[in-house]
């Protein structure tokens, strides 16, 4: 099976974010970056599918400046076979503009399965995977928390609010990966050495018009919590009083 996984380089979400001086982006000084959470699950899912079949080929693709090469190398060190950087100085805020670049690359690539993370943990749009599928005209299941592939067909489970559903689809297809499938493995030393020799192709990305523009980034107001009502069951009457009279939720 030939599998492509589209991955994004994203900031570590444990960062205490600061806003850059322009007021329109996050200050990246001192911030650690890695494969975005769900994209790591997608890489792991691809590797496990390949291992189960005992054959196949996993290509990881990332759009962005040269810093994404580090992210691609990490996926190669986990076990992906080759990597493609779609080079551009800046990733646009318009998910459809991103999807167009990825669809151009995936088109004609002969992939049976094209995986994405459910959403980029930083931009949080959860849009690029399904949009890419539409542009390619292939079936898509988004946010799969379970995935099985057999005889050219896939079965996926999606988590809904308080429920789940199960869908079937033919390959080739796009599937976006939710948590639940697989925790990404840590690269082994051998994997890291091997990754250095794996092919990483750099291609210019043709980024079209972006109709989504960031005009401002700001930190949300701090929650000023920290009020301890009391200790143990004895605190309950006061808590209930506050919920009724102050918060008015009871």
């Amino acid at each position: 099976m030939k599998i492509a996984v589209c991955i994004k380089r994203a900031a570590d979400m444990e960062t205490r974010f600061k806003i850059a001086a322009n007021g329109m982006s996050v200050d990246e000084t001192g911030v650690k970056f890695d494969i975005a959470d769900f994209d790591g699950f997608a890489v792991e899912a691809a590797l496990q599918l390949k291992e189960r079949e005992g054959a196949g080929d996993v290509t990881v693709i990332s759009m962005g400046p040269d810093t994404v090469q580090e992210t691609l190398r990490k996926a190669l060190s986990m076990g992906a076979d080759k990597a493609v950087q779609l080079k551009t100085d800046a990733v646009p805020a318009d998910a459809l503009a991103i999807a167009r670049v990825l669809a151009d690359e995936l088109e004609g690539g002969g992939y049976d399965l094209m995986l994405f993370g459910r959403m980029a943990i930083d931009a949080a749009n959860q849009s690029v995977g399904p949009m890419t599928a539409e542009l390619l005209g292939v079936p898509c299941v988004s946010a799969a928390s379970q995935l099985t592939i057999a005889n050219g067909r896939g079965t996926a489970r999606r988590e809904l609010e308080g429920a789940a559903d199960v869908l079937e689809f033919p390959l080739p297809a796009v599937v976006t990966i939710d948590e639940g499938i697989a925790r990404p493995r840590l690269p082994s030393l051998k994997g890291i050495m091997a990754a250095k020799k794996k092919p990483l192709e750099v291609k210019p990305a043709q980024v079209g018009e972006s109709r989504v523009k960031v005009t401002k980034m700001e930190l949300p107001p701090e929650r000023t919590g920290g009020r301890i009502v009391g200790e143990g069951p004895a605190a309950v009457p006061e808590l209930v009083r506050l919920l009724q009279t102050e918060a008015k939720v009871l």
Partner: protein
Amino acid sequence: MANTFAFVESRGGDLRRVGLESVTAARHLADATGGGDVHALVVGAPGIASKTEMIAAHGADVVEVVEHPGLALYSPEVVAATAADRIGAGSYRAAFFSASAQGRDLAPRVAAKLGVALGADVTAFEASGDAIIVRHPVNTGKVIATLSITGTPVLLSLRPGAVTAARAPRTARVEAIAPAMDPASARVVPKELLAGNTAKLDLGEAPVIVSGGRGLRAPENFKLVEDLASAFGNAAVGATRAVTDDGWRPHTDQIGQTGRLVSPDLYVACGISGAIQHLAGMRTSKTIVAINKDREAPIFKIADYGVVGDVLEVLPVLTDAVRKAKHSH
């Protein structure tokens, strides 16, 4: 003056609260831009047409209804094709979807079919000149982006709870329409809907969420969490990843960075430490209560009201008190 479109989400023959929120949002935008009409679309198995009155009551001037026996379950390709058809046929300023599990699957498909931009998971919106300006939490809610989106229409998916569904009754024209493709020809085939094993209300709908963590010590103690939820009467049960990983609760209940994002009116965190990944999913709740035996637990830093104590002792007393408070009015 331009018309606005709203997709009304349903599941199992019932409208979802988020579906009515999208109608209310469309009404707000139409009114704010000179009072155009709101056109709503609802899709389901035969019987869904009985919901049109409810949709009109929330401000729709036209309700387009697709009823088909093949659409009892959400069928992504059929619904996307139908919504794209309807939106493409009008000249809408904006089209609203829900940033729910279903809406986040549907809206990007429709945007790509129409070749228009999507503002995903927005918490606020307004028209400004030829753009729609939205707010969208990024970096797990630690940063808020303001985005300017152009084109017609602009598609928006609304974060659940960002707008409160409100009555604004209209005498709507109801139009029965056919799905844009035969459900039998869809490549992606919905096979079944697995209901969650928790309370009647689910995380996407409930104004109150009672959530449990490892501090409950054993899966059977979640009974205490469920009891408190049922005392509220309008509450759903949530959980941390520590608990869903251990199989104490289903994965669908997980709240956080890699689980569901929720913002109920009241969030009660029981035996939850308040790890940053958990906070990412619930920090926008309007009121937060925390019960934890460790005074230094990070959850207390964001809780409006904290109780330091053993959750196994506090919960039964709290459940009792809530039940009494509910009965007294």
